[in-house]
């Protein structure tokens, strides 16, 4: 069971969260609060694993709440999902390792995605490190990224990326059922991603090996990478031996 606290100064906003979370079996709401002071008190009292936090509240903002909480030495800070109508604090939220940043109004789908990420984080046993918490050694590869796509702010875990296609100065990142255009070169993205999961198969394509179903040889010596979703990504000859080695290795 994931024990969660809802903090939002609007009754209807809390009600929406409550109703949507009713369908999620492993989340239990242990408390609701409408001010920052109440939130601090309630978190100290109930010690939840997850906190749904609005940023603008009447007395303090959400970040102040987290700062207060992380100054408690003997307590682990809950994982945080920000739920707000304001998109200005997204980078700050990302930097303090918030799980997600939901812009109001959000869809149940977005909420479920965020909760799923909390589950994964709890499984790996990683503590939430909100802001002032101790710094870890920086990992060499990107595991999460934040970007804006069509007016939405996304905290994307790189595991959700199926494949990436270069389009001139941009890359198209294809996830579950969506694709996002990012101003980035495929080369710099390749360097940021863990080569054990992400493989360059073509001058203009990177695939996530966890989403690869098979490699199909074509008659002319080239090959096609078939993803579990059925999508086909062309592969050039020079990259073929690499992927076959890696797939066997897995």
């Amino acid at each position, binding site marked *: 069971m994931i024990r969660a606290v809802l903090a939002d100064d609007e009754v209807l906003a809390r009600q929406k969260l409550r109703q949507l979370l009713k369908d999620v079996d492993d989340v239990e709401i242990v408390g609701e609060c409408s001010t920052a002071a109440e939130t601090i008190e309630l978190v100290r009292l109930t010690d939840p694993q997850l906190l749904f936090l609005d940023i603008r509240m009447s007395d303090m903002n959400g970040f102040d709440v987290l700062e207060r909480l992380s100054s408690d030495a003997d307590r682990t800070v809950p994982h945080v999902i920000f739920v707000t109508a304001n998109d200005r604090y997204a980078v700050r939220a990302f930097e303090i390792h918030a799980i997600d940043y939901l812009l109001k109004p959000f869809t149940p789908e977005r909420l479920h995605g965020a909760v799923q990420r909390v589950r994964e984080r709890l499984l790996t046993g990683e503590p939430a490190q909100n802001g002032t918490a101790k710094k870890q050694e920086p990992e060499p590869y990107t595991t999460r990224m934040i970007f804006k796509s069509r007016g939405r702010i996304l905290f994307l875990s790189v595991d959700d990326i199926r494949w990436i296609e270069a389009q001139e100065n941009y890359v198209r990142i294809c996830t579950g059922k969506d694709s996002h255009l990012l101003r980035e070169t495929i080369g710099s993205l390749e360097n*940021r991603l863990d080569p054990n999961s992400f493989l360059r198969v073509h001058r203009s394509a990177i695939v996530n090996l966890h989403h690869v179903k098979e490699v199909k040889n074509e008659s002319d010596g080239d090959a096609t990478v078939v993803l579990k979703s059925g999508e086909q990504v062309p592969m050039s000859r020079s990259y073929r031996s690499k992927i076959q080695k890696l797939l066997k290795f897995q």
Partner: protein
Amino acid sequence: MQTGRKNIPAFMNPAIFITSSVLVGILFAFQEWISLRHMGYHMHAPIFFESWGFQFLVWGTLCWIMWRFLGGWIQRARLVTILTIFLPLSIATSLAQQMLFVFIFHNLPLNHEEMSYWQRLSMYVYAELLDNMLIFWCAFLLFRGIGYYQQYREQREAKTELEIQLANAKLAALRMQLNPHFLFNTMNSISSLMRSDVEAADTMLEQLSCLLRLSLERGESQLISLREELDFIELYVGMQGQRYAGRLKQSVNFDPELYDALVPSMLLQPIVENAYVHGISKTDAKSSLTIEGKRDGNQLKICVMNSGNGLNMKSNDRGRRGVGLRNIEARLKLHYGADATLEIAEADQRNVHVTIVLPLQYSTEEENQLTRFGTQ
């Protein structure tokens, strides 16, 4: 030829200009008369004022004529022209002015009645040619200065004009989302979906919010990357697609190399909106909307093609559709002058093509992006 520009300072009016020139001459005369008195010479005052006044009357007239007929040329002249044309011209004008002066005032210099015209002229040329040329070049610089001032004013006015146009475009965009066609129909769709398909209702509500957010947060910049413009258009097209689900086929196709190209902000939206409001919504038949962008040499060519209702050239619709398109046309003209065009054509009874051609320019500034990378 005088430049056809506005913002000509009031003092360039011939009467004012020549009068002030004469006043300057009288000031000089007064100064010389005083200083000579100071040194103990007593002279007949009118001769000073007459000669100085006359000299500056001639200069004032000459300069004004120069401004009237050579003004634009002076303002545009490059160094080569200045050296090869205006330098000789300054010498010639000064000489001519002095010849006239010496001819009129034959009792000058004083006490040299025995000298011939040419002797007196050479004496004056020797003493005052440089001074006269200085007057010429002062006028030259003044006219050039006026040119810069006009340019500055014009640029500022053009900028203000652009800002107004952009504000109008933004307002139009907001109004588009807040108009009965769109906002209330979308809300009605959401309301209907709430009973049948809550998730779809939620999706639509989120999209509507994204659209409003995007248009509210558009910065003040006149030109944005095509990518940003397309973000908006794709979202808008996607929502309209849900409303016309089943009978509308739409596609947005842009060459990726154009994503960084600069386009005036809110360029496409009124055109796409027209396609829905005047074309697609007016027919029950299956229709299509295609938005394409291609590079054409040094130009960017964007086509919005829709089937549905044609242009109906005779109906009153034409006047109504004007406002949005006129606004775009005006903004294109302000940004690119004659280098950009907007064309509306009826391919046949049911198909309308809008084509925009504008010079291809790329942003030199790095976009301020939200994107960050991190680790768990």
